[in-house]
Every structure is written in structure tokens, then in C-alpha cells.
């Protein structure tokens, strides 16, 4: 099987691993898989600015590093600003002839907490200023690095350690913040959603994001088996179900024009929710509520696609 993949797979996907094996991620970590695929798509002429969070922690315990490419981590909420600085620095140094003329993709990466909560101001600033950079949000729907606390990207009904399900609560009582829509509202040239369960679609989008001039934002749903309380061997399946149920549709917005990338008849959301410990407490009524909301949101998205 592996041999077959090496024979045929490398025609489709590079064997280079800018994000090297040997990181400390949990078994089945969908976020690490997503980063690995994104790095394959980006190649080595990049500088990565990484927010504090799981990816930074699993990839960089001194003196080890998973990064075969230039990489900088500073703080939790400032990654888009650090990337702005890297972009400005390389730009002026090239202009002044102090470093070789060569295109370098500046890539900021962060979790949903780093992106939708604490870092949203820095991100908004960087998108608005129009730096030529890519922002990749690896959304595992909670603050995983600090132990599964809720974020504004945690979906309605999920149980987390700071919004636990209990006798008087279903867990998260708010709806997931729509980060891609916020990115679109900045009028940037490229916004997309992606999932490592659709690897070629995801890599295409990351490449496109790198190719556009100006800011690009890709929001990548990344299954966290530890935080979602799912079996370690189902991360890819569950990521696929998120798309197939319409909970996390795959779409892109190029210069304001919406396009749906996977558009088949939707499976019931229960197929997705019932596989996960974080939703185990939900009653059929609650699941129906979620179903109704997903149906409604999906229709809104399709209306945008139809233009």
C-alpha cells in the first residue's frame, strides 16, 4: 500500500515535508495533518509566523524543531502583526538590494482562539492594511492547547471545560462566529474554507492564497480528537462528515465572488454529531435545532453563490 502510494501519490503531491515528522501532536491530530498538507502546498520559499497554541507547542520544544522553513513564534494574539512586520522587512530589504530578489510567501498561522478571539484585532488590522500575506486559521473549535476551553468558534451545543454541559446547560450556548465572513468583509482578494479531509481541495486553496497579491485568508476545520472526544482513527472521516452534513461547507470567495467547492445532497447533522463525545449529551430536540440552523445557513450560502 505504502509502496503504491509512493509510486502514484508523488505525481499528485510532493514528497517534501517542510513540516517534518516527529512533532509531539496527539495521535490522530487533524490540525497537524492540516499543517503538513498546507506546508506541502506552500513549499519552502516561505516565512511562517505562528501564534501560541497546539501547533507551536507540538512543533518547537527547544532544542528541537519540526520546521524546515524559517519560522517565528512570539505571542498568542499578534501573529498577523508579526507577519505584517516580516512582510514589510523583506519588502524594504529587497527594494534596497540588501537581500536576494526572490518571491517569499509570508504565512501567518494560528488556532481559532488566536484568530477569532484574542488575535482578531491584529488580524483585522493586517487584512485592512493590505499586506501581501496568507493567514491560515486552523480551527479545532476550542482552546485546545490549554485544555479544551470554549472559544467564539466553538459550535452551539459542544461541551468544553469552560462551557461544560450540565443539568442547566447544554454546553456552548452561542453560535459559532463566522470568521470567513469577517475576512470577506475586509474586501480582500481571496477567502476560502478548507479541510484536510479534502486534501487536494485544501492544497489548491492554499496555493491560490499564496498566488494572489494582497491578503488571503483560509479557514481550515481541523479535527481535534482529544478535544472533540472522538476515536483517534476517525479524524479524517469526521472532517469529511463536517463538510458532507453542511456544518462546514467548503467554499471560496475570490474578489467577492462566492463558489461552493463541494455541493452534494447533505447528510443529516446527527451523522456528524453522534460520533463525538463533546455532543454526546444533546437530545434529539437539540440536534433538530442544530439541523434547522445548518439547513438555513447552507441556504444562505447557496444564495450568495448564486449571486
Amino acid at each position: 500500500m505504502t509502496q503504491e502510494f509512493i509510486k502514484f501519490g508523488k505525481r499528485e503531491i510532493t514528497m517534501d515535508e517542510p513540516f517534518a515528522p516527529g512533532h509531539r501532536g496527539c495521535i490522530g491530530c487533524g490540525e497537524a495533518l492540516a499543517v503538513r498538507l498546507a506546508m506541502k502546498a506552500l513549499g519552502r520559499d516561505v516565512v511562517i509566523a505562528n501564534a501560541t497554541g497546539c501547533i507551536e507547542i507540538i512543533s518547537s520544544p527547544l532544542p528541537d524543531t519540526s520546521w524546515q522553513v524559517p519560522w517565528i513564534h512570539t505571542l498568542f494574539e499578534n501573529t498577523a502583526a508579526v507577519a505584517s512586520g516580516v512582510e514589510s522587512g523583506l519588502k524594504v530589504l529587497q527594494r534596497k538590494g540588501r537581500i536576494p530578489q526572490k518571491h517569499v510567501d509570508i504565512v501567518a498561522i494560528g488556532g481559532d482562539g488566536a484568530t477569532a478571539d484574542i488575535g482578531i484585532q491584529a488580524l483585522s488590522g493586517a487584512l485592512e492594511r493590505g499586506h501581501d500575506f496568507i493567514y491560515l486559521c486552523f480551527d479545532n473549535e476550542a482552546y485546545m492547547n490549554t485544555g479544551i476551553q470554549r472559544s467564539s468558534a466553538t459550535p452551539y451545543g459542544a461541551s468544553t471545560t469552560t462551557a461544560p454541559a450540565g443539568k442547566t446547560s447544554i454546553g456552548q450556548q452561542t453560535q459559532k462566529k463566522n470568521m470567513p465572513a469577517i475576512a470577506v468583509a475586509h474586501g480582500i482578494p481571496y477567502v476560502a474554507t478548507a479541510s484536510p479531509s479534502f486534501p487536494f481541495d485544501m492544497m489548491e486553496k492554499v496555493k491560490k492564497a499564496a498566488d494572489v497579491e494582497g491578503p488571503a485568508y483560509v479557514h481550515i476545520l481541523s479535527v481535534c480528537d482529544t478535544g472533540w472526544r472522538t476515536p483517534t482513527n476517525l479524524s479524517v472521516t469526521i472532517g469529511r462528515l463536517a463538510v458532507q452534513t453542511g456544518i462546514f461547507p467548503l467554499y471560496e470567495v475570490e474578489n467577492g465572488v462566492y463558489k461552493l467547492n463541494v455541493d452534494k445532497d447533505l447528510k443529516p447533522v446527527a451523522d456528524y454529531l453522534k460520533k463525538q463525545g463533546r455532543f454526546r449529551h444533546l437530545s434529539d430536540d437539540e440536534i433538530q435545532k442544530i439541523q434547522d440552523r445548518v439547513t438555513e445557513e447552507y441556504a444562505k450560502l447557496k444564495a450568495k453563490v448564486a449571486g
Partner: protein
Amino acid sequence: MAKKIGLEGSLAISEAVKLSNTDVVAAYPITPQTHIVESLAEMVANGELDAEYVPVESEHSAMSVCLGSSATGARTFTATASQGLELMHEVLYVASSMRLPIVMAVANRALSAPLSVWGDHSDVMAVRDVGWIQVFAENAQEAHDLVLWAFRVGEDPDALLPVMLNIDGFNLSHVTEPVLLNEQADVDKFLPVNRYPLPLHPDKPVTMGAFGPPFIYTEAKKAQEVAFSKSKDVIMKGWDEFEQVFGRKYSPIETYKTDDAETLLLTMGSLSETASLAVDNMRDQGKKVGLLRIRLWRPFPFTELRKAVANTKVLVVLDRCLSIGGPGGPVASEIRSALYDQEKRPKVVSLIGGLGGRDVTPTDFEYMVNRGVEIAEKGSDAEYEMIGVRE
């Protein structure tokens, strides 16, 4: 020949940033710093300065942009004050720990609440321990010169440290003074091109800012501490070379009429010009009074300070910052501990004044000397006293 012109303190700084051929400026407005970044914006817009000007959405992002650009090897400048400096707080530690030679001007200002845009040293005293080289300029000329020196020292491969240049808000930032504008040719002689040893670039990948598990964190901090202590040599060399090129001499501590002084006043920043008037006055009255001004605040000039106060009986320290519930003004308490182990040491009296833009006059300084001597002789129950408070 360098020309002498009238220049506001803020513009003395931005002119020096231009002469330094700075590559990246991150800018966010806050009084009384704003003239600095406004004039830099103008220089970039007019094509006088070839820099990337990044008008960020907060000071937290200003310093974060500085981290990123400095890590590419670009010469990087920003300026702030007060709330802006506090908003940067956590980022300041990263700049020094990651050895990024950013230069920042701080137009010192009080902290809220109540809101005050006027000057004191509360902002900078809250960031004493962030691991930056920190200096206080007394006048516009010094501010102009110290920018060049700050880049020269910070970017030296033996230092690689960020440098904070403090100027008093309004008293210095907004006052026009005669300044000898340095010549570009001299600046080019003094300040080499920034050659950051491990810049972020795909041609030679580096991992910067990895996390430190317990087995290595202490060693990482020790390495930083050693580098910081050693930066004193670079600092002194920088001032020596500055004198050779520009003819003006700078040192960690300035002394005024200290030789036979029994009582010394100690200040930082622009107030020392006022204090020197009081010293002259009291000298005329036959009182043996002198003045010390600390220019280099970090690394703290222990040797120079101990030497300067060795024959003094009373050292009156004016702090423009309150350390509520603490052992005295921040400067006074540091000086007390710097002198504690000395066999011969003056009594250190901690007075707090000049808060939130309150004027400190020569008469106030005379009062401080007299009150200081009184406290030194009779003792006091209080660790410190606030002066000039209206009852």
C-alpha cells in the same frame, strides 16, 4: 559642518531616524509621542526616507510588527508613551529575549486613572525589567544623538538588544531647542548597515521563538542575562566612537558640581536642567550641593553611581513615579539597594514629585535639598514623601 537649527525634541528624534536610513517604522498615535511618527510619515510620503511605514491598529501590534521586521534584519523603529507602552508590555519581553535590536522612543507620560496626557515616569518605570537597554535624554540634542547611538549599540553583534530612548513628554517632546543636526557622512561613518546574524529568510531557515521546557528555560535566561551585562562594553564603546565622530561626549551618569558636595540631588530626564539652577543658587548661598543625572538606566550603572556618591552625606532622589505601598520611588529604592553593601554610603532620601505634568521649579529643588537634609538628620517614619501636594 553640522548646522545648528531650532528643532522640537520630537523632530530631533525623527531627523535622526531618517539619518539612520531606517527600514521599517511601525506607528500608532499617542500624546505626547505623536509628532515623532507624524514627521516620519511625512518623510516617507515625501520620499526623503525610503522605509516601510506601517500604520498599525494598536501599540501591541506596533511592537509586534517591530518583532517581525527586526527578525528579517531590517532596521526598525517605533515610538510610544504611557498607555501605549503598557499595552506593549508582554511584547517588550519578547523583543529582548529574542535579541531583536529594535529602537523605540518613549515620550514619558503619566498613566491613567485619572487620564493625564502630561509627563512623568510612571510608564517607563513599569517596564524596568523587560530586558531593554534604557536611556534618558536631557535635551533635544541628546535625543537626536542617542537615536544614532541606540541603533549602533543595539545592532552590534555583541549586543543584539532593543534600546528604549526616554524623553520627557512635552518638556522635551514639544519644546524647540537649538540642535546641531548631524551630517549624513558622519552618521554613515558611525553607524554601519544592520547585519543581523540570523535573519528570517528561506535561503537559511531558522526557528525563532521555540518554547522552553524547564530543562532549558533557566539556561536561556542566563544566556540573555550574560549578553545584557556584556552590553555595557558595547554601550561605552558606542559613546567613545560617538565622541570621536561627532565630538560630543556621553556617559552613564552626569555630574554637576559634585566634587565637594555634601548633599546631592538625583534626577533623570529633562528636569536636571532645572535642578542645576537650584544647585547654582544654593552654591551662591555657600551650600555644598551638587547634582547627579542618570542617563543609562539599564544596564544600571552601579560602578559609576557608587563612585559619584562616595563622599556625599545625603542623596536626595526625585522620582516622578509612585510605587504605591512599596519601599520608595522606584529609582530611590534601586539606589538604596545599589548602595546598601557599601561601607561608606550617603543617606538616601526618596521624594516623589512632578507627577502628571506638575511643574518642578528651582525653588522646589531647593526645598527638596533642605527637606532631604532634615529627613537625613532627624529620620522619618515614612519610606518616602510626596512633595508639592496641595492640602
